[in-house]
């Protein structure tokens, strides 16, 4: 079966972002960009399913600027077969518009498994997979920590607040990955070279009949309130004293 994996180019997880002085957004000039960590887990899962013989082809799609090619190429270096870049100003698109574009890609490619990360670490929305599920009328296994494909069904173990829940979905189905689903591999140099030769199509949102910009408008972006500087205590006695008499929390 075919698997489609959606990946997003985001600011690297280790970068401490700074808010622009004019409060229009976060300053991303000269900041290291990477594949969203949850998307990387989705690529890895697809590759593992291919290694098991469950999946025969992996298509990677990214919606974003031209530079998102880099994230598609790194997914190919991990084992994806081909890529689709939907070139768009992703700051104009909300989760709903992204889900609509992905629906267009799914309609064209007809994958049985659609893998996404549970959330992107830039806007922290955690919406696209669920919205795509609604638009396709397909089942969704969100926050997946285990995926088992059996015939025309997939069993997904999900991380929920109290523990774990397992659901069974009919294919085609959407899976959004949680951290503990797998540990992504590193791309080997020969695979990085090979990935350069794999096919990569470029499309636009209009190719899928989507042109709308999000109806959510970001009015301003601020730095979070600073905490007042704390103090180092020298002993347990001092800590207990401070907690009792100064902070009054115990």
């Amino acid at each position: 079966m075919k698997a489609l994996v959606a990946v997003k180019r985001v600011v690297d997880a280790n970068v401490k972002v700074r808010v622009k002085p004019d409060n229009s957004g976060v300053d991303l000039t000269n900041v290291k960009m990477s594949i969203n960590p949850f998307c990387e887990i989705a690529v890895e899962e697809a590759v593992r399913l291919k290694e098991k013989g469950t999946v025969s082809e992996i298509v990677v799609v990214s919606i974003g600027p031209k530079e998102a090619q880099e994230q598609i190429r790194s997914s190919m270096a991990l084992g994806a077969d081909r890529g689709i870049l939907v070139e768009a100003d992703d700051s104009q698109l909300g989760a709903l518009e992204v889900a609509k574009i992905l629906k267009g890609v799914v309609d064209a490619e007809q994958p049985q498994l659609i893998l996404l990360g549970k959330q992107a670490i830039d806007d922290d929305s955690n919406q696209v997979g669920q919205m795509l599920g609604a638009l396709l009328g397909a089942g969704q296994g969100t926050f997946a920590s285990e995926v088992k494909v059996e015939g025309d069904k997939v069993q997904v173990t999900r991380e929920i607040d109290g523990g774990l829940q397992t659901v069974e979905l009919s294919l085609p189905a959407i899976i959004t990955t949680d951290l503990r689903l797998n540990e992504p591999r590193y791309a080997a140099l020969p695979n990085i070279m090979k990935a350069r030769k794999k096919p990569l199509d470029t499309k636009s949102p209009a190719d899928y009949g989507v042109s709308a910009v999000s109806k959510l408008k970001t009015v301003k972006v601020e730095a979070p309130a600073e905490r007042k500087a704390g103090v180092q205590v020298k002993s347990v006695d001092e800590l207990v004293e401070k907690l009792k008499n100064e902070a009054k929390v115990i």
Partner: protein
Amino acid sequence: MSILVIAEHDNKALNGATLNVVAAAQKIGGDITVLVAGAGAQAVADQAAKVAGVSKVLLADDAVYANQLAENVAKLVASIGVGYSHILAASTTTGKNVLPRAAALLDVSMITDIIAVEGPKTFKRPIYAGNAIATVESGESIVVATVRGTAFDAVAAEGGSAAVEAVASQGDAGISKFVSEEIVKSERPELTAARIVVSGGRGVASGENYHKVLDPLADKLGAAQGASRAAVDAGFVPNDMQVGQTGKIVAPELYIAVGISGAIQHLAGMKDSKVIVAINKDEEAPINAVADYWLVGDLNTVVPELVSKL
């Protein structure tokens, strides 16, 4: 304004998170209706009817809602939600699973994790792991949003007297099935609602040591226990204890971080705590930058000493 709040529950009792969502709904202002979708969930509806500020409770009682499968619940929420100006749910794994699906069925955008109400259509929410706060204005006819519970003080669970009205089930979407559930049992307070949280990180070195060192402290303080991602990934404790951007968001009165360095992803889950204490052997640990009090020392001697002096 008419606001639909999706109740969070286990078919027996209303989850406290719903009370925080009702509080956010009151900030928006308007008539508040609570939807209880469940199986044999009359008791939950009765509880919801008593919540202060709620004017009506809708109960959709059907086996297809027993396990809160998103495919079925979202269909119900979308069919009922058309008549409302706002649809809100808690930012729990259930709320996050169901609400975006319902929003897409309604063809409207959604706002995740609101932490402040600035106006009926304007909200604040954290982005970039809490390193920036965005003010977002919705141009949609229906505002669909999840609410970060720790940002709103819960309304009273008693005092209301809303009428409970049955609503028809939308049936089974037929594309998903519940198989099983494994709920971690704990005698301690729930992590997201606890007044005091004691968390351990990689520095506790093992699962055995986590319990040896931190259990007595949590017992003494009546605290919930949490962990950093490093401690969860290393297998010291189950993943539902993880505090952080990708785990649970907590804002207790007192958060004690033991053997936690303070990575960005962890801070996103706890930096709104009222008082933060860090116990770490590293003087340069980033956690100290957000801590009100930090103590440099070996957790294996410091924590038992702390327990003995409390």
